[in-house]
């Protein structure tokens, strides 16, 4: 054996380093014990989660906050199956991630060996791609391809399953190489003819609207988006996944559209004559009844994934390409595009949008019990909109999206596509690892926070100063809201009358716990909580039956909004 041969675990560490990884989230076990043994001799920061789901969400939060690829290790069998929800969460939101799982030795595969599970089979539909490493010779290539796939094109999670015996076999390594996969060639450069058509359409539009999404964040197209909106004086609405890519305090900002979107955003969609849909996939939570979605608009759609185009909504001008490249080119073209002779008068449209803003803004009425919206509103003002906000799922998530106004991409970290309760706390851990100097806050519900509460230990162990705001309504609030509105208030299995004492729980984990039960305590608790070093849980006992409005009932047109 020549001196240059390396073991599988050494090859793994080498590739991780060369791919720019410095932080790994994971959980050990028999099938990855050799990997962990090698890891102990490296300089990677390893964050031991308390559940593999937590490890994957943390790697995901790291990726979302940093724009880099998240990395996670888990053992075979139950370790691997515990990663599935996290992987599916990342997949739905197109988050670049590489998950390394251990597998039983190759000679045992297929024999129902101890802790054997076909994780490649299980995760096939929720990964961008996945691999079972069958021989040591292919390990290096597979690992490099995994990173390449995870972050190129439409990003996504890639799983690499490495049998235990292969981890300790040796082979030669080739080092970093340009990756060329003949079956995978994402289209980055958009068709320029189509883009010039768009430039013309913009100049002629009377009621234009920009509708942007997660693709803008993922491709780093935020600046180009802002330029497009300002240079053409076009108002902007963004999906949940796109929040932050356009400043939430800009006068052109309309708020989020869809099921819990603002009145003005939904009205603008229904009345615009030109929609520039950028990096969106027309999820049903945004479109409502598709027949009534943007019925008067010529729709332009820019997306790197051809399957996102014409999937839910027919568009007139489809453009496959990277959002950033496309928007930069479009901005160039717009500068050169001559003003049309009779440039349309947009004043009526602009007035209309302003009027919508004034007549039906987001609002709440703070009375004797704490309104959850008031908590988020105060938190927004106190942090001057600077915090990185992760969320759990449910009403808490929607209030965070509505009342915290995000001004930067990568600032709002939420499980959009899958809607995974238990995402926010581990994601906050990942985000804090990625951005050690920023304030990271998880906006949580009392139900969701209990789904990965064990990660409090992880945060405390690593002195991560994450803050958790629990909007405690003692309900699985969002489900209760549906039961309230559409099921005759039959609150079947949505009451949480046996929650733990969250303040004591924080204490038990070695974190700080604070509670506000009356409106006048909200500010003080937020202030103290945000200023306390280390991990803090702030519990706000809120108005139990507050609902999220506006609300478009599922399957209705987005103009069919319940307003209060």
């Amino acid at each position: 054996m020549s001196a240059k041969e390396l073991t599988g675990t050494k090859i793994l560490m080498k590739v991780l380093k060369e791919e720019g990884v410095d932080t790994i989230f994971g959980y050990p076990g028999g099938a990855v014990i050799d990997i962990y043994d090698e890891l102990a001799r490296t300089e990677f920061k390893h964050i031991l989660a308390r559940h593999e789901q937590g490890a994957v969400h943390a790697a995901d939060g790291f990726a979302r906050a940093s724009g880099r690829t998240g990395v996670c290790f888990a053992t075979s069998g139950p370790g691997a199956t515990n990663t599935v929800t996290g992987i599916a969460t990342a997949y739905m939101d197109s988050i670049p991630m590489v998950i390394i799982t251990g597998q039983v030795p190759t000679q045992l595969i297929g024999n129902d060996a101890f802790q054997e599970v076909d994780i490649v089979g299980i995760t096939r539909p929720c990964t961008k791609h996945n691999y079972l490493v069958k021989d040591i010779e292919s390990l290096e290539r597979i690992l490099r391809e995994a990173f390449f796939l995870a972050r190129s094109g439409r990003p996504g999670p890639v799983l690499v399953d490495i049998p235990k015996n292969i981890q300790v076999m040796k082979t030669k390594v080739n080092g970093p190489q340009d990756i060329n996969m003949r079956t995978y060639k994402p289209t980055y450069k958009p068709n320029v003819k189509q883009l010039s058509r768009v430039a013309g359409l913009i100049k002629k539009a009377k009621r234009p609207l920009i509708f942007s999404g997660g693709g803008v964040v993922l491709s780093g197209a935020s600046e180009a988006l802002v330029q497009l909106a300002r240079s053409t004086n076009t108002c902007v609405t963004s999906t949940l996944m796109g929040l932050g890519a356009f400043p939430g305090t800009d006068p052109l900002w309309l708020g989020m559209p869809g099921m819990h979107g603002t009145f003005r955003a939904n009205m603008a969609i229904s009345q615009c004559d030109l929609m520039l849909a950028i990096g969106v996939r027309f999820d049903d939570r945004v479109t409502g009844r598709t027949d009534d979605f943007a019925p008067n608009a010529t729709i332009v759609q820019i997306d790197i994934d051809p399957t996102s185009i014409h999937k839910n909504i027919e568009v007139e001008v489809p453009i496959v390409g990277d959002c950033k490249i496309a928007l930069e080119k479009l901005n160039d073209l717009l500068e050169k595009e001559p003003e049309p002779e009779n440039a349309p008068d947009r004043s009526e449209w602009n007035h209309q949008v302003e009027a919508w803003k004034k007549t039906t803004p987001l609002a709440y009425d703070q009375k004797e019990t704490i309104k959850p919206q008031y908590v988020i509103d105060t938190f927004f003002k106190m942090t001057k909109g600077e915090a990185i906000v992760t969320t759990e799922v449910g009403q808490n998530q929607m209030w965070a999206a509505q009342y915290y106004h995000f001004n930067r991409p990568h600032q709002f970290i939420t499980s959009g596509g899958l809607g995974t309760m238990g995402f926010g706390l581990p994601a906050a851990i990942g985000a804090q690892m990625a951005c050690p100097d920023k304030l990271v806050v998880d906006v949580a519900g009392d139900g969701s926070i209990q789904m990965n509460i064990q990660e409090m230990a992880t945060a405390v162990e690593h002195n991560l100063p994450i803050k958790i705001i629990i909007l405690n309504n003692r309900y699985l609030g969002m489900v209760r809201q549906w039961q309230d509105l559409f099921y005759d208030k039959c609150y079947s299995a949505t009451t949480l009358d046996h929650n733990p004492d969250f303040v004591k729980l924080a204490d038990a984990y070695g974190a700080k716990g604070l509670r506000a039960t009356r409106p006048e305590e909200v500010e003080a608790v937020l202030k103290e909580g945000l200023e306390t070093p280390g991990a803090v849980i702030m519990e706000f006992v809120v108005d139990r039956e507050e609902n999220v409005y506006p609300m478009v009932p599922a399957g209705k047109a987005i103009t069919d909004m319940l307003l209060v």
Partner: protein
Amino acid sequence: MSEKRHILSIQVDNEPGVLSRIVGLFSGRGYNIDSLNVAATNEPNISRITMVTTADTAIMEQIKKQLHKLINVVTVHDLTESDYVQRELALIKIHVKADNRGELINIVDIFRYKIVDVGPEHVTIEATATEEKLKAFIELVTPMGIKEIVRTGSIALYRGN
């Protein structure tokens, strides 16, 4: 929109698990598979899947794009979009007695199929045909009593280059 039959010719990496990715895509997204044929090609490492599916235009567009998106898929062609030749191979075991054996042999001759196995109470026929012709043949021999039938599913290629 009206549904139509399509013959897809899909070249894929010849790797374990690839078929499962394709079948999983179809089952997961609720697309139809009417028939499926997979085998190696003359190119090493490439297999060809011929699949017959029924879908309307919009779904068909999604099917093609979704297939392309799979990392192991090399090319996807919808042969029904242009001129193609299509065949299917079937082995059909038919129940025969002395009194109708002659009649069956005549039918087989007319269709130019082959008898590949004969026993006291059965005849097995090898039939290579287009879908329509095979259907006609099967209808004709059904009254005699088909014991077993095995079909490859359609395979097809573009005409010309």
